[in-house]
């Protein structure tokens, strides 16, 4: 497989240096990298899993609203970013596979290369201050 474009490689290198959870996907939503803080959210390590197909990593945690009702995938920022090639932001709850619930804010944005080519997307997870 050819090497990723440098915009993706540099995104990983930036994520690798940050203390906030960062997820990087390809254009179809496959998770191609997550950093150490994101490992806590996923409950697994990149070293162990490597890249994860969208079908696998989207089941690791369940997005729900404040009443605990499941959120449809098409309402999630990263899904919308991949669909529209546009940044989005949303605050919601996630439930991990172990049943732990956490309120988070997610900001996602597309990675557009120098020539405007859509190369992938980044999602940044924040612990929500919205009580």
């Amino acid at each position, binding site marked *: 497989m050819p*090497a990723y474009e*440098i915009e993706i490689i540099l995104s990983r290198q930036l994520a690798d240096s940050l203390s906030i959870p960062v997820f990087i996907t390809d254009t179809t939503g496959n998770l191609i990298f997550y950093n150490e803080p994101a490992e806590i959210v996923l409950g697994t390590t990149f070293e162990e899993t490597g890249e994860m197909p969208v079908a696998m990593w989207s089941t690791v945690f369940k997005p729900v609203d404040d009443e605990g009702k499941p959120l449809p995938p098409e309402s999630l920022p990263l899904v919308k970013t991949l669909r529209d090639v546009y940044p989005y932001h949303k605050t919601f709850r996630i439930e991990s596979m172990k049943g732990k619930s956490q309120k988070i804010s997610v900001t996602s944005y597309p990675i557009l290369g120098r*020539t405007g080519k859509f190369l992938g997307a980044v999602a940044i997870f924040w612990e929500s201050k919205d009580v």
Partner: protein
Amino acid sequence: MKILLRGVRGSIPTTAPDTVYYGGNTSCTIVSEKDWLLVLDGGSGMQRFYIANYTANKRVDILLTHLHFDHIQGLGFFIPLFDSSMEVHIWGPAGAGKSLHSRLSRYLSPPLFPVHLRDLPCKLTLHEIENSSFDIGPFSIQSRYIIHPGPTVGFRIAGQQSVFAYLPDHEPALGSKGFPADKKWISGIDLALHSDLLLHDAQYTADEYKNKMGWGHSSMEDAIQFAMLADVKHLLLSHHDPFRSDSQLNEIFSELQKNTNYSLKYEMAVEGTEIELA
């Protein structure tokens, strides 16, 4: 395929007597096969190059990795550009904004240079490249964006029997904890993969690199590791620091050999060297 190193110094030309062995000219390498000639980068090594000594072909192609001054400063002194019988093609990386013509014109226009790019007498064609594949005469060429400040590409040049990879300004280790084991996460690796000869940035020692991270250049150790991951046959360490004398470069290279045990064939690039790739 023949390779001629015309300039292997980084950043700024040096003229001091203690740099004459490795040479003081900035990046320029000539690649030739049959009657075709490629000029890789337009550093000061471009000056005093008499194309008629190498080929009767009235076409020459200049491939620019990027537009930092040490890679274009020789353009204004490249004789074919001032010869109306010559067909000159300049290939350079596309940026997010201004065109290649506009960016080159910032140098090739007053007050920095007396002649406008548009007034050069040769038959000039500019080509913007990105992650591109193109053919020039017997050469099949791939360009890919690589890690260096500003739009920068490296080149993989395949002749009829051999492959030369050219990444004179490149920092593949930027930000990562060493090189990832997975090659698809390494900038420029596709260009260098299984090449017969790689010319790669190696401006710093490993200690110096710790304080120069993000400047766009590599340590010698990183360049060697990159070449080994790419399974390169022969590596030339280039873009020598302009503050380095010949004796300092000799000393650094000898320390490198003493303290490491790489199986790869590697050496310091020396201006004027000619290499024939079989």
